């Protein structure tokens, strides 16, 4: 089928427009390709992202060290028992003489300070400084180092504190059954002669029994989150017993200190009438909206389930927001879009293009389109690359985390919208003032960066007059659409004081018109970004149409 001029009927105004658009877009792409600055800025962007990927891969290869969220795997007092084990047995984790099975020291007598004296018998000797002549000794009674003699060497010639010195807790051997000790504790049968000017006491241990110290690893990830999924059931279980235990060493302290702070261990801190539980509050749709745990319940969850996922998502969201939107999103347009029309005008090559039947307004639009193909193509390719790596190496049971790729595509989409908006703004600035446009653009770039930082910090009102705010909210919305449990992870991390990257990089979308729906906030963001882009293009077109070209 042909028309009068012998063209196929497919030949319409639209296909011709299409061809012009194609030609200018293609010309723009080829021009950008022939400019060194394009390759420099794309190269720098590429290096930045590759460095981040290398960090990510390095992190994955090092593996995830389980985190001791409640700090109870450490033996604070050096008695050989991790704090968590001491909590269970009710001993004081900060007192080396108090440990599981240590019992109570009952004092029978002591030397007066500064006196000289001798005392004999089978006793537990504490804080003893002097010479002990014995027929039997246990230098390392159960429970660890603080009670024993820390180090035992041959004594040098001479007198203690005159000719030689011992550290606190140390001792040295004078001969087969004679020791010199300095502030040491041990059990033995013999005669103790206190050093003049020093001290020693003796007594016995009551109710002591043998407890094997547990390895520190038993107190890492030992109290996982126990959530039945039903807020009406009792949730949370104190797996490591540090909430349920009775007989805390602070039992004697008052309930309130002089500042009015709760001092004593309180098994029902959330005041829901159940000791050592976690209160989960959900809305009518079953979404978790708040979590109130009692102290020391579910406080050391397994990273496998939460923190790995949190860190992984935080990497994706953080990279997406900072590297893609705040760095690439602002710098690519600064380098690539500012001169889109300005350079043609300055070179005089604009005359070739404008002597063709093409409107100046169209010309601007197609130029920006060409720039978007280059900058947006780069962003898309880089995000897919990041997606492939994080989806393959991320935590979880699946071999390939498809949702990672979807989030990355969302980040690319948001970044491309930002590129369009900044491209339109900067191109218009270049048109308005070929000399000062670049400085104004730099100021805008800094402003946008600051607004992005405010948005990251959770500001909802001040940054609304910026492109970056809406772009970041679009990413927040996409993240919530793809990973709906991100809000719960956010709440859980805050409730149990877990280190969380999500809380640092992700905020629940603010502008949802009260619906709390990420679809609404995402749609609003897209519309706002489209509007900014269109208005700036229209403004640029208006300026350009009225411009006389010499």
């Amino acid at each position: 089928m042909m028309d009068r001029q012998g063209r196929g009927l497919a030949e319409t105004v639209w296909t011709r427009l299409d061809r012009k658009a194609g030609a200018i877009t293609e010309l723009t792409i080829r021009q950008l390709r022939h400019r060194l600055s394009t390759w420099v800025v794309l190269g720098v962007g590429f290096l930045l992202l590759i460095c981040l990927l290398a960090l990510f891969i390095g992190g994955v290869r090092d593996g995830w060290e389980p985190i001791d969220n409640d700090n109870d795997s450490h033996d604070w007092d050096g008695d050989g028992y991790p704090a968590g084990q001491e909590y269970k047995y009710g001993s004081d984790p900060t007192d080396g003489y108090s440990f599981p099975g240590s019992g109570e020291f009952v004092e029978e007598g002591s030397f007066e300070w500064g006196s000289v004296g001798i005392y004999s018998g089978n006793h537990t000797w504490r804080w003893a400084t002097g010479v002990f002549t014995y027929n039997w000794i246990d230098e390392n009674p159960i429970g660890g180092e603080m009670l024993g003699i820390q180090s035992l060497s041959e004594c040098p010639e001479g007198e203690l504190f005159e000719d030689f010195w011992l550290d606190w807790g140390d001792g040295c051997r004078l001969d087969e059954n004679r020791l010199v000790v300095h502030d040491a504790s041990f059990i033995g049968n013999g005669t103790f002669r206190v050093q003049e000017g020093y001290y020693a006491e003796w007594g016995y241990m009551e109710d002591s029994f043998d407890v094997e110290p547990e390895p520190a690893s038993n107190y890492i990830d030992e109290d996982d989150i126990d959530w039945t999924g039903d807020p009406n059931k009792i949730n949370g279980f104190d797996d490591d017993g540090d909430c349920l235990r009775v007989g805390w060493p602070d039992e004697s302290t008052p309930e309130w200190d002089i500042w009015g702070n709760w001092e004593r261990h309180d098994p029902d801190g959330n005041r829901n009438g159940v000791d050592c539980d976690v209160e989960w509050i959900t809305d009518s749709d079953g979404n978790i909206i708040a979590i109130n745990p009692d102290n020391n319940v579910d406080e050391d969850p397994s990273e496998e389930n939460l923190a790995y996922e949190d860190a992984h998502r935080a990497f994706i969201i953080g990279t997406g927001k900072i590297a893609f939107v705040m760095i690439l999103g602002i710098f690519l347009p600064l380098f690539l879009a500012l001169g889109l029309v300005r350079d043609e005008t300055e070179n005089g090559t604009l005359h070739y293009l404008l002597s063709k039947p093409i409107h100046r307004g169209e010309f601007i639009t197609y130029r920006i389109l060409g720039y978007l193909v280059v900058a947006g193509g780069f962003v898309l390719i880089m995000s897919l690359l990041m997606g492939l790596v994080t989806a393959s190496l991320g935590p979880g049971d699946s071999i390939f985390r498809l949702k990672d790729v979807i989030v990355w595509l969302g980040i690319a989409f948001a970044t491309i919208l930002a590129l369009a908006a900044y491209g339109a703004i900067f191109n218009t600035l270049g048109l308005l003032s070929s000399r000062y446009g670049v400085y104004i653009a730099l100021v805008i770039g800094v402003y946008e960066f600051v607004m992005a930082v405010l948005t990251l910090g959770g500001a909802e009102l001040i940054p609304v007059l910026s492109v970056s705010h809406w772009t970041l909210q679009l990413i927040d919305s996409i993240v919530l659409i793809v990973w709906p449990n991100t809000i719960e992870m956010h709440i859980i991390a805050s409730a149990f004081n877990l280190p969380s990257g999500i809380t640092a990089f992700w905020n629940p979308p603010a502008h949802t018109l009260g619906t709390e729906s990420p679809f609404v906030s995402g749609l609003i963001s897209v519309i706002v970004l489209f509007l900014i882009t269109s208005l700036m293009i229209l403004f640029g077109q208006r300026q350009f149409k009225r411009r006389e070209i010499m």
Partner: protein
Amino acid sequence: MSTKATPAVLLEKCSKWYGQVIGINDVSLAIDGGVTGILGPNGAGKSTLFKLLMGRLKPSSGNVRLFGVDPWVSTSPYRRVGYVAETEKLYDWMTGHDFVSTLARLHGMTREEASDRASHVLDFVGLSDVQNKEIGKYSKGMRQRVKIAHALVHDPDLIILDEPLHGCDPIARTSIMSVIRDLGSQGKTVLVSSHILDEIERITEQIVILHNGRLLALGNLHAIRDLLDKHPHRILIRTENPRKLAEYFVPEDPVYGVRFAEDGALEILTNDLSAAHEVLPRVIVDSGLKITSIENPDDNLEALLGYLVGGTS
């Protein structure tokens, strides 16, 4: 397509000022068909005129119409116009063929159409052998011709060339002139500007003379030249014996005086240049003197302008 009712180019009382500086001043003009030379010294307003026609500038007053349409408002007449701008810049990284076919696509041609047309016009301007070379490697004349090729690629009815011969070597000049004459003989309307009378004379007889933004003369170059011929005019003859030659010239009718120039040349003053040139060979033969050169020092644009300005003021 162009009819008498809507000439290709129409200016009505058109003026353009750049602040205090006059670009063109109250120019009215209608041009349709054939090659027209726009003649004027640098700064006469030739480029301003073209930029008004191409919608780059908005007239300060008056109207500009290209095929009956205001080019400042609509780009539609550019479908039928090819414009060779004064600018020397080109996309040096493109090949000639690339450049022309890319711009052809802005006329809505498909890639294939554009490529075919580009090859065709590059052949027409004599660049077919270098069309796949980068423009950066082109000579000045080739660069001018590739600019002409891009203006011709859509087979326009009106072609506007701003100083197409500027800076070209004689060979390039000749070939560009022949391209322009060919276009004229194809029935296109061609506007070509120059500040060199001789160049225009070799291309066309129809001229427009601009001076200080004003339209000074419009019409056939020969008619203008005849007017000029009626004006006191000099012929400079270099010979071994100017005094003897003078004796032969004094009695001739078109000659009203002679003068001896300082460097031993004889200056013949006439009121009728063509009549003087008619008698010139006979007189020289009669004298039997050896002549080294004959010059018409007044036969250039400056002289023509001098005459025209002198005549109008």
